[in-house]
């Protein structure tokens, strides 16, 4: 949970930054100054917002309160947070989604629906992910070990095709003539339903 909290805080700050620049641009400069000035101001104000302890702390406090509300749904929340984080690695767009929705309660409800659907989608994939795709070797009828492909394109265990070539010099599936070097290792991908 420590990491989750840390992530939340960091995340909230990031949102504060994003909120800050348009607000500053709208309230501060845009009324009197030309748009270009507002544009140039955007950067210093951003830095200011980071430096200005008072305002950013206030924002953080507000955010924290929101997070506390969210924490009412205690267990559910922790579970969701974990799921969300796992989804968010590398997903910038998604990263913005949770706090925005958390701000208003009616949206939160929608969000929780969304979350539920996300959880439902993520659970099977999370279960399926560690499961290796299994292919059966047509020779030993066991799970394929060190899958190897022949020059005619048929796949067997390494030791099975080796033994088959030694015995018959033919492909077990299509009977094409094969020499001792007519096969090589092949690395099979995950099956389509796991993506």
């Amino acid at each position, binding site marked *: 949970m420590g990491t989750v909290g840390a992530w939340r805080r960091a995340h909230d700050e990031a949102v504060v930054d994003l909120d800050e620049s348009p607000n500053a641009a709208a309230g501060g400069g845009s009324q009197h100054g030309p748009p270009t000035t507002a544009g140039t101001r955007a950067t210093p104000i951003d830095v200011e917002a980071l430096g200005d302890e008072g305002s950013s702390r206030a924002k953080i406090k507000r955010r924290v309160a929101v997070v506390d509300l969210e924490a009412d749904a205690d267990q559910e929340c922790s579970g969701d947070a974990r799921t969300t984080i796992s989804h968010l690695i590398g997903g910038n767009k998604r990263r913005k989604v949770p706090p925005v929705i958390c701000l208003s309660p009616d949206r939160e409800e929608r969000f929780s629906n969304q979350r539920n659907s996300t959880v439902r989608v993520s659970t099977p994939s999370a279960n399926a992910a560690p499961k290796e795709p299994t292919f059966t070797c047509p020779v030993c009828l066991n799970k394929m070990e060190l899958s190897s492909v022949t020059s005619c394109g048929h796949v067997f265990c390494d030791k099975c095709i080796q033994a088959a070539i030694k015995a*018959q010099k033919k492909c077990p599936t299509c009977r094409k003539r094969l020499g001792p070097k007519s096969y090589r290792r092949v690395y099979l991908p995950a099956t389509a339903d796991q993506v």
Partner: protein
Amino acid sequence: MVDVSRVQKELTECNRDSDISGVSIALHDGGSSITHLTGTIAGPRDSPYEGGTFRIDIRLPGGYPFEPPKMQFITKVWHPNISSQNGAICLDILKDQWSPALTLKTALLSLQALLSAPAPDDPQDAVVAQQYLRDKATFVSTARYWTEAFAKSDSTGMEEKVQKLVEMGFPEDMVRSALKSVNGDENMALEKLCSG
């Protein structure tokens, strides 16, 4: 050495749908050797072998599945590609056309297909093949007679045996498959049912 795990898998797989496929495999005479088996095939429909149950002796050589299984009819059968004397079979996949990707089940299914479609140009039994080519009607009636005489002999009174075993408390489908696998021997079927 014989790949025991593969043979066990094959037996399970083959006997799972034996009602539909018409072929099944059991250890020979209820023995314990995995290299000596007995296959059973149902005579194919629309052939002179229809209604018969044919037993096949199966021996697995040490190199199995890289060497073909040795198969021979135990039940006497009148067919151009099967010896009427000793049941020896002339079928390419049991010789040079064997492949380790084939299984005992596919081999038995091939035998079933061979019963449906004799190949008299490559005979095992020259006398039968001659008859098949010159006098098809006589061939068919002889083959049918042999089926009646040898492939059904043990199945007379089958319903009574089934009835008797069902009354002992075994499910009917299990009784039928047990009787079928031991070619109608009531005592052996009972033994099989008791051993599970």
